[in-house]
């Protein structure tokens, strides 16, 4: 695999991204940043574009995404079948974690027979 460690990336609300940057996972260089702050005014197309950009970079290992943001681009997520980066749905301050909406969790629960 790659010798160079990969970045984490985040697409979420202001608080999530702040925590992300506080922990030191933020990265910004000449090309672009590895995060996107999504608020009520962000257009879905912008989210989709950033998603496509982040998933086509081969130096991004994990993409964290708030569940409410994930819901907005659910169709794109359902078609996503790459190994890298891994998409991890996380709850946000205003939207607690809902296992039913999480694609991976749905399959896990289905296989466990829950």
């Amino acid at each position, binding site marked *: 695999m790659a010798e160079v460690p990969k970045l984490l990336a985040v697409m979420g609300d202001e608080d999530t991204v702040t*925590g992300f*940057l506080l922990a030191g996972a*933020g*990265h*910004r260089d000449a090309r672009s940043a590895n995060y996107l702050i999504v608020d009520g005014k962000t257009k879905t197309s912008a989210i989709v574009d950033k998603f496509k950009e982040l998933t086509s970079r081969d130096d991004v290992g994990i993409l964290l995404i708030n569940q409410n943001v994930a819901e907005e681009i659910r169709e794109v997520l359902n078609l996503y079948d790459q190994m*890298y980066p*891994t998409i991890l749905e996380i709850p946000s*301050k205003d939207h607690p974690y809902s296992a039913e909406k999480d694609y991976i969790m749905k399959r896990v629960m289905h*296989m466990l027979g829950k």
Partner: protein
Amino acid sequence: MSGNQRENAFPTRQVLQIYKKKAKGAQKGYDLLKKKSDALTVRFRALLKQIYSTKSSMGDEMKEASFSLAEAVWAADSKFKYKLIDKPMDARIRVRVQNDNVAGVRLPVFEKMTDQSAAAAEAYGLARGGKEIEKCTKKWTTLFENLIQLASLQTSFLALDEAIKVTNRRVNALDNVVIPRTKNTIKYIESELDELEREDIFRIKKVLEVKRVKEAVERSEFMAFQDDAAASSAADQANMMNAYDTKDEDVIF
């Protein structure tokens, strides 16, 4: 469905041997793949349980982390968020991908790597609330470690799922198509060989019979000829004597 299909093989003994070897190989392959599939499935089940429990608890952790962030914002300058974003940044936390091997399937595992070279504790130019911010940073860092582990589990889950599907497809293909076909081919060749043998035996018997009849005829002819010859040679001798006896005046006796 494919119960009676067989391959087009020329029925000879050598070809039979070849197909017998094929059947053995297919059977071995099937056993091995089945074992692999079972091993993968066991690992998969364990993984499922892990993912379920980790993700469920992650929801709570996230809440705590958000709360501590709110605390920090309240204690410090509410604008520190923006100060954070404005700074040029180099990611301090990264992940390294390592490969884990389960029954021949390579599973990716994420490992957290902290880049120590980048500046660690920064002041963010704030007068107060430093302790809250520090607590917040710690909370988020722990959260990240769990998130990274969760991501590893997720990727392994997806990779294993795919591998199990592929292996099971092969197992089924061997079991339902390759092995029955080979067995049918072997049966066909054996029955053809038997038939040929039977024909052979029949033919040989017939030939022997014909030969025997011919021999019998020849022998009887020969016997007849011999008798004739014996008889005629005796007659000849007698004739010769007679011819010798008469009409020659020079012979005194």
